[in-house]
């Protein structure tokens, strides 16, 4: 065997004992090892992916995602694309018609208010337009239905409609069906893939495209979203309207049998459909202005920088980017305040923590342990309790004010306002974040041997010089690590500013929480969060450039 091996080595790839090339069998062995290692870390890996990477990724995505406009008003958006908002003219009649049909479906699916609030972030007032229109959009369609049903009573029956539109033994238009499945699915954030027996007739789709489309839309909605069989139910009033509208010009010569009979009767119905621009302007005169149309057009793309622009107090207008109106500009200020207050908190933590860390590192073990327990004690108390304790301390009828008044240092009428403002936030957060500053500083100081100080003194340095020129520079990595930790923690802190910050002492994170839980503007919340993340990464990068991340020691 060894002979064979040697020969192989000379005139070909080296073989393993079982005859496979050595390279491959080595790779296999290594793969097995790697696989085993991967299995070991798999639980953590999955945990991290699911709980950390995925939410952050989805947050980043959410901050630019904007398909709600195109999903809710697909036809309108498409037709509006060629309209020039700056021309000063209203969009063409076709756009109004598309809007009527889109909005009708959206109102039936109750999605129009969502779109309204989305667009309201960009143009306030627009949400009431959508709400209003949703309520009145079916007036015209109802009239059309009444007219049709009183003339041809057979149309009162859902089965008539079904027989008219369903392909049955004819050729089916499956393209239309799947397009409508997609349309309804996107509208409702679902897959709209449930089973259904209905398939639009290709023939009808040729002769009456709008009607067939509307009916298919309804049938898909009925079957997949409501779980009802379209065969026995009345369609939306939109379908009779479409039928009456199309019959005015439709050529029915290709039809035979019941279909031809029914539709010829329906063609005789005299129902006057005003231009859709008038219909919409009747519902709300705002549709007769440029404003809603240009808002829709500006924000109709699938991805938007709008949330990020809003996050920095700007907005996208048809003329380009612009600042928000003066009274809505709060976020930049809030970012600035968050940064400045975080810096103040970090500095306070350095000033208060340094001596403690120094004592921890230099006291005899027994005393240092006691001190360490005192440092760690806050960790054993709930954050809420600690923050609330500060409320008790700082409020106007609180402990500190009482003592000051009792000492006569402060007049009873002019008690100090130390809470629900920036001062309160800074005090409480400094206290809460102090351990995160002390511990890294301590672990670095512990590694500085006392002989350096002795050496400095033996060389003639006073205590202060020895400290400042020899000890302090060596403790900087600890200060750096503590500062990064405290700064990053404080820049995203939420609970404490929420409780003691009032209106002037809140952070950007409180605004994010507001948008997530109260205003439900998740896109803006995600954009704010992404900016926060970017700021932290940027600061981290700067720090790395200036101090060097290798110099940071956490323990």
């Amino acid at each position: 065997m060894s002979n064979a091996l040697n020969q192989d080595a000379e005139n070909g790839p080296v073989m393993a004992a079982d005859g496979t090339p050595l390279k491959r069998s080595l790779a296999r062995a290594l793969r097995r090892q790697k696989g085993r290692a991967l299995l070991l870390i798999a639980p953590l890996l999955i945990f991290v992916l699911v709980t950390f990477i995925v939410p952050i990724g989805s947050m980043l995505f959410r901050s630019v995602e904007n398909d709600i406009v195109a999903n809710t008003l697909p036809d309108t958006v498409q037709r509006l694309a060629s309209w020039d908002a700056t021309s000063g003219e209203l969009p063409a009649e076709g756009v109004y018609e598309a809007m009527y049909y889109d909005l009708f479906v959206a109102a039936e699916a109750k999605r129009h208010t969502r779109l309204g609030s989305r667009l309201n972030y960009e143009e306030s007032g627009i949400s009431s337009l959508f709400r209003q229109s949703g309520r009145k959009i079916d007036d015209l369609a109802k009239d059309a239905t009444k007219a049709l049903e009183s003339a041809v009573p057979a149309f009162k029956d859902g089965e008539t409609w079904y027989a008219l539109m369903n392909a049955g033994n004819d050729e089916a238009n499956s393209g239309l069906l799947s397009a409508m499945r997609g349309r309804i699915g996107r509208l409702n954030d679902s897959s709209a893939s449930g089973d259904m027996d209905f398939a639009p007739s290709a023939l009808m789709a040729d002769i009456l495209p709008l009607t067939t489309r509307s009916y298919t839309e309804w049938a898909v909605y009925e079957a997949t979203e409501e779980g009802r069989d379209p065969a026995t139910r009345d369609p939306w009033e939109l379908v009779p309207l479409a039928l009456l509208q199309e019959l005015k010009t439709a050529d029915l010569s290709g039809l035979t049998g019941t279909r031809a009979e029914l539709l010829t009767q329906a063609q005789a119905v005299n129902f006057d459909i005003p231009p859709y621009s008038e219909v919409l302007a009747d519902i709300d005169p705002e549709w007769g202005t440029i404003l809603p149309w240009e808002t829709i057009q500006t924000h109709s793309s699938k991805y938007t920088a709008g949330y990020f622009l809003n996050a920095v107090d700007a907005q996208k207008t048809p003329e380009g980017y612009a600042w928000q109106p003066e009274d809505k500009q709060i976020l930049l200020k809030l970012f600035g305040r968050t940064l400045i207050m975080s810096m103040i908190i970090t500095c306070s933590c350095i000033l208060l923590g340094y001596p403690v860390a120094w004592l921890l590192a230099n006291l005899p073990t027994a005393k240092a342990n006691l001190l360490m327990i005192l440092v760690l004690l806050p960790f054993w108390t709930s954050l809420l309790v600690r923050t609330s304790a500060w409320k008790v301390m700082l409020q106007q009828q609180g402990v500190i004010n009482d003592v000051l008044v009792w000492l006569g240092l402060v007049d009873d009428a002019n008690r100090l306002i130390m809470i629900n403002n920036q001062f309160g936030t800074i005090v409480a957060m400094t206290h809460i974040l102090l351990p995160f500053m002390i511990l890294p500083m301590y672990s670095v100081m512990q590694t500085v041997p006392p002989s350096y100080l002795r050496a400095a003194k033996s060389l003639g340095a006073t205590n202060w010089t020895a400290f400042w020129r020899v000890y302090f520079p060596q403790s900087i990595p600890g200060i750096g690590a503590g500062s990064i930790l405290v700064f990053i923690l404080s820049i995203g802190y939420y609970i404490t500013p929420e409780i003691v910050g009032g209106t002037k002492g809140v952070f950007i994170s409180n605004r994010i929480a507001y948008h997530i839980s109260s205003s439900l503007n998740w896109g803006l919340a995600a954009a704010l969060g992404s900016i926060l993340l970017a700021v932290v990464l940027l600061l981290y990068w700067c720090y790395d450039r200036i101090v060097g991340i290798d110099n940071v020691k956490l323990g």
Partner: protein
Amino acid sequence: MANTSTDAAFVEFERVQKSYDGVNLVVKDLNLSMPRGEFLTMLGPSGSGKTTCLMMLAGFETATHGDIRLGGTSINNIPPHKRGIGMVFQNYALFPHMTVAENLAFPLEVRKIGKSEREEKIHRALGMVQMNDFAGRRPTQLSGGQQQRIALARALVFEPELVLMDEPLGALDKQLRETLQFEITKLAHDLGITVVYVTHDQTEALTMSDRVAVFENGRIQQLAPPDQLYEKPENSFVAQFIGENNTLMGEVKEITNGTAVVQLDGGDLIDAVPVNVSKVGERTRVSIRPERVEMNKERLMPGAKTLKAEVLEFIYMGDIFRTRLRVAGSDDFVIKTRNAPDQVRLTPGTQIEIGWLPEDCRALDA
């Protein structure tokens, strides 16, 4: 010991005691006086109080009792940075965030010495330790020996009169240690500085020092020049601590004009110099250096007492032979002989007779 007169003393410890915990005395009644320019080594086992003495001198520890004087004035209440004592630490204590030149500039800067003078002094000090090429490096970019040189240069750059060194060569390998030992002694003598040097390497102590103070348990056991320390140890601790030593236990039988007759525990009688035995009948530990034992009867004084010995082991060590014998019931009696052409190589089992000059054999405390 010619240098004990107090008016010539530069460094003086007078009845110094030190306790860290109020229970044990780490330094017990230390009296020491050094003239200017002396190289004194403190030698002793671990925990014997050498570092403590040095720290008291440097000012980092205060004496619990007694007086420490420098140039005649008591320095008990002078803070360390005003004492002007150079110090070399065992772990070098070079400031890691400064370059070599900045390290050396530090003592000059705190003394507010001008830039040009500073540079000149740094240059000179680095020259003394042949490290001029390394001025721009950080301490971590130097080898152990180079760091030690820089530490030495830093302790010397501000021209102190007294330099303290606490096991400065402890972390280096043997060869480097020997080179640096030589360099340090030479520098100290050239500059005329007074040095207190701490080590527990006895060869280092013997080769470098003018005088060696042997510490044990917070006391100086003997303070003497190296040759005296080796040849005339004053008690059995010093005899055993310095160099290799054969000891035999026995009892004093007779003391007459400077010689004592000792009866060993095996019954044999030998002559010895009485060092710290005074009474007949006292137990004693007799000590003989291995290289002073003689196997050749002709070289001994006529009438000198001899002992029977059996060769147990012969070890060839190149320059010397080391032979282990059984003498007077003791199995670890060692003799060392020079590897000379006429030297016999003893084979184990051989019976021989050994003897020595009476003055080489010292009767010490048991």
